[in-house]
């Protein structure tokens, strides 16, 4: 999921020059791994110091609400040593250049996913700022005829210690541009000396958002642009038999109608479905044209798929041993000989991403080049998608990725880019492809659904001595090219997750249940499922062995120590950081206080992609089974919080995403078709369900950051269902909670 790692070589790191308008520009030459870059001096823009003292910092990463466009420039500004109020942030397009061995990044790796946007740019952004600052110091030293060691900076100004002279950065533009780039080690600031990073900074885009000026991808307007929608096959892996377009052709504004060739069933693919494209002079005309189509679909190989069948198959699979993917110690004998044995099953449904901005893409294919504007987490994937359709060289495909109206993993896949490019290629027109909400909910790469069987053996002292997690699910790796069947489990079970190396006899088993429902990455992939299962099961163990759920967690997570962790987010996992967070949220919610009947508190904690989070949730449940979330305490340990304002936002948002999904969201299948279509049957949470008593806490740790986009979500569902159990004695073992509390 992460972008290709960036290799920063000092010698080729920054280049600088001046512009005709009198600005100083710092950029980077095209960078790649193992490429000969000496002859490529094309500048990748990064920092511009204008003659009037304004600082422009380029933002190279997709922004989908996670705050990258603010957080990364903060790091540049911190090391450059400028006044944050004088900084403007300018988004950059996709920058790739052709090299002798393929393609290289012009502005550093571009792409966000797996909560890596910050961590993969942490050193890089600071180096950009520090290098630029050093160049200004050398320019000032040369002018004053002193050594650079005699100079330091304060925000926006180089100061000469010996002479007491101060020179604003903007006065050094021409001299700095003429100096050879300083090639030496640049020491970076200690975090305790930060003035910008580590402090809460508001989103740089907030003013444009609240005044309606922000242009999202779907707001793209270009001369001569036509609007397109696609009628996609509603049958999973179905296809188009024939269609009658005569009525649609009569709709005022409809310009063209043609077939879109879908993917072959079971093959790795670029788009989700076969369909019929309707191109018109407006979105509404295109939608009306689509409504007027009469289409005969071939239901295809998955016509018999249904949720009922899927769950029945999962249950049957779990009766058999699965593929053993981890076998520490001797689970079988430890379980058989245990003083107490506990077994439970948990069901987790398919869910949709449903970002609020439905998929869309502007594409304009011409003979020798192609323009793409798309809400994508992976702009290089958009470039590849357009290249595959047009056969144009990738350097001739210009990709812009404006602010994205939510992603949650959906925009890792560029199927809508492929579609829009196909339509523009076919018509020769600039095309805005718009998906409706129904298109979005029915045609997604859903979170994999699965049934989990958990078994634990407990000794006479209440210690867990054996642990097994047997999962039957629809793996999301099914459509990876060249993925052997025996590796399908790898996207669904992370072997080094808790309780690895904590419970001695540990076994993980997997059954893949093939179903036609497309699957993909959904915020905190696998973690968001497994944390609910594992943290629910812990509470069940506590209950059935007479232990306190808080104390059981403290005992299991234990002291601070680094455990080896080979999955994404490693190389180590420190369960003691979960102990700290769990104790903290328990104390904040006054865990041990006696509560009225029908009230209860639940706890959960999880380590996701390098970051740690814990929740304490208090609920009440009425005699009629009405659930009220009374109070939420959420805490995150993301190492050093670069922008606490954005971390706090992700902690709130991730928590609410977890609540919304656990409470009421589920995608189901009947007769090979997705049954949900819009917010009436996929009821995303509204403000009324979120208590006013909602506190968030950032517990700092060390001086390097982790990502935060996914970390807060995984513990939420378990804290909620554990609270329901504490309040009612009813254990939720199937998500969503829905109406299960209404007896």
């Amino acid at each position, binding site marked *: 999921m992460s972008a290709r790692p960036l290799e920063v070589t000092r010698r080729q790191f920054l280049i600088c020059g001046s512009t005709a308008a009198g600005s100083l520009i710092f950029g980077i030459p095209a960078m790649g791994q193992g490429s000969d870059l000496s002859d490529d001096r094309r500048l990748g823009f990064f920092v511009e110091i204008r003659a009037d003292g304004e600082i422009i910092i380029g933002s190279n990463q997709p922004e*989908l*609400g*996670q*705050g990258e466009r603010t957080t990364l420039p903060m790091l540049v500004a911190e090391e450059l040593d400028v006044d944050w109020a004088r900084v403007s942030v300018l988004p950059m397009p996709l920058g790739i250049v052709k090299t002798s061995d393929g393609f290289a990044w012009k502005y550093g790796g571009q792409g966000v996913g797996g909560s890596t946007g910050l961590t993969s740019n942490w050193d890089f952004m600071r180096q950009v700022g520090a290098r630029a600052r050093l160049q200004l110091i050398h320019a000032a030293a040369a002018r004053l005829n002193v050594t650079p060691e005699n100079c330091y900076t304060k925000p926006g100004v180089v100061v000469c210690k010996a002479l007491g002279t101060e020179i604003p950065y903007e006065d050094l533009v021409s001299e700095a541009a003429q100096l050879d780039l300083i090639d030496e080690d640049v020491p970076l600031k200690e975090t305790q000396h930060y003035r910008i990073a580590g402090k809460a900074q*508001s989103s740089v*885009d*907030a*003013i444009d*958002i*609240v*005044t*309606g*000026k922000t*242009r*999202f991808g*779907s*707001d793209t*307007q270009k001369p001569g642009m036509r609007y397109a929608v696609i009628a996609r096959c509603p049958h999973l892996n179905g296809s188009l038999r024939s269609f009658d377009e005569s009525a649609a052709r009569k709709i*005022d*504004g409809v310009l063209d109608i043609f077939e879109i060739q879908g993917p072959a069933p079971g093959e790795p693919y670029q788009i989700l479905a076969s369909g019929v494209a309707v191109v018109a002079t*407006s*979105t*509404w*005309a295109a939608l*009306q044209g689509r409504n007027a189509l009469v289409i005969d679909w071939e239901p295809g190989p998955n016509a018999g798929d249904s949720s009922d069948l899927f769950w029945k198959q999962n249950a049957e699979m779990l009766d058999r041993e699965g593929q053993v993917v981890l076998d520490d110690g001797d689970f079988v004998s430890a379980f058989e000989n245990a003083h107490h044995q506990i077994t439970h099953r948990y069901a987790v449904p398919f869910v949709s991403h*449903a*970002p*609020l*901005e*439905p998929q869309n893409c502007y594409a304009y294919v011409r003979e020798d080049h192609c323009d793409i504007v798309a809400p994508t987490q992976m702009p290089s994937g958009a470039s590849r998608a357009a290249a595959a359709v047009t056969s144009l060289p990738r350097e001739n495909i210009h990709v812009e990725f404006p*602010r994205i*109206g*939510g*992603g*949650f993993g959906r925009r890792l896949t560029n199927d809508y880019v492929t579609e829009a490019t196909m339509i523009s290629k076919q018509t020769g027109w600039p095309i805005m492809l*718009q998906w*409706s*909400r*129904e298109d979005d909910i029915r045609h997604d790469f859903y979170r994999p659904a699965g049934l989990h069987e958990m078994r634990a053996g407990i000794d006479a002292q209440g210690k867990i001595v054996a642990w097994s997690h047997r999962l039957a699910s629809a793996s999301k790796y099914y459509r990876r090219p060249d993925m052997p069947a025996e590796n399908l489990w790898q996207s669904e079970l992370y072997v080094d997750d808790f309780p690895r190396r904590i419970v001695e006899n540990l076994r993980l088993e997997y059954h893949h249940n093939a179903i036609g429902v497309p699957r993909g990455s959904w915020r905190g992939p696998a973690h968001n499922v497994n944390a609910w299962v594992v943290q629910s099961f812990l509470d069940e163990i506590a209950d059935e062995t007479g232990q306190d759920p808080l104390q059981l967690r403290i005992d299991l997570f234990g002291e601070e120590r680094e455990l080896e962790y080979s999955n994404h987010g490693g190389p180590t996992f420190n369960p003691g950081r979960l102990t700290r967070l769990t104790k903290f949220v328990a104390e904040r919610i006054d865990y041990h206080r006696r509560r009225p009947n029908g009230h209860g508190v639940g706890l959960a904690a999880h380590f996701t992609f390098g970051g740690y989070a814990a929740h304490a949730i208090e609920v009440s449940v009425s005699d009629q089974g009405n659930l009220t979330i009374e109070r939420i305490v959420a805490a995150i340990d993301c190492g050093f919080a670069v922008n606490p*304002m954005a971390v706090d*936002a*992700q902690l*709130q*948002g*991730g928590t*609410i*995403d977890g609540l*919304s999904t656990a409470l009421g969201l589920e995608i189901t299948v009947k007769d090979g078709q997705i049954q949900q279509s*819009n*917010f*009436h049957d996929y009821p*995303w*949470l*509204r*403000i*009324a369900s*979120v208590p*006013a008593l*909602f506190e*968030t806490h950032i517990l700092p740790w060390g001086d390097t950051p982790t990502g935060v986009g996914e970390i807060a979500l995984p513990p939420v569902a378990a804290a909620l269902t554990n609270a329901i159990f504490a309040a009612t004695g009813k254990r939720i073992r199937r998500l969503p909670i829905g109406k299960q509390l209404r007896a």
Partner: protein
Amino acid sequence: MIKFRLNSEDVSFEGDTGTPLLWVIRDHLKMTGTKYGCGIGLCGSCTVHVDGEAMRSCVVPVAEIAARSVTTIEGLAEGAELHPVQQAWMEIDVPQCGFCQPGMIMEVADFLERHPDPSDEDINKNITNICRCGTYPRVRNAIHRAAAIREANE
């Protein structure tokens, strides 16, 4: 031809009078602050004011707008002076992705006209816009803050 006022300017639309106001504003009048999120009036991303009252423009045929006055997010501020709701949204740093926020802000601006000093219960009963990023805690704080700014202005 349908004539109406949009952000204090006279505009007109020639075409299918059943076209939802949303698409007339976005595609024909090229004003893109108002967003499409669901098309069935459930998410509120498309909320505008019609004669001062919040409406979900994706389910209002433009025929019903004839001779009426529409305000979108672009027309909410009075010149350079942000509306109290916009000010509060800036102070609290509400938006994440930002896609729902124009509709949310228009809804709240109208809500505060009718509930100048809202309780949390008032908010729960009246604000039904969907924010997929889950900015609700900050939305709630910002509503209370906007109410305070309005009161101070009076």
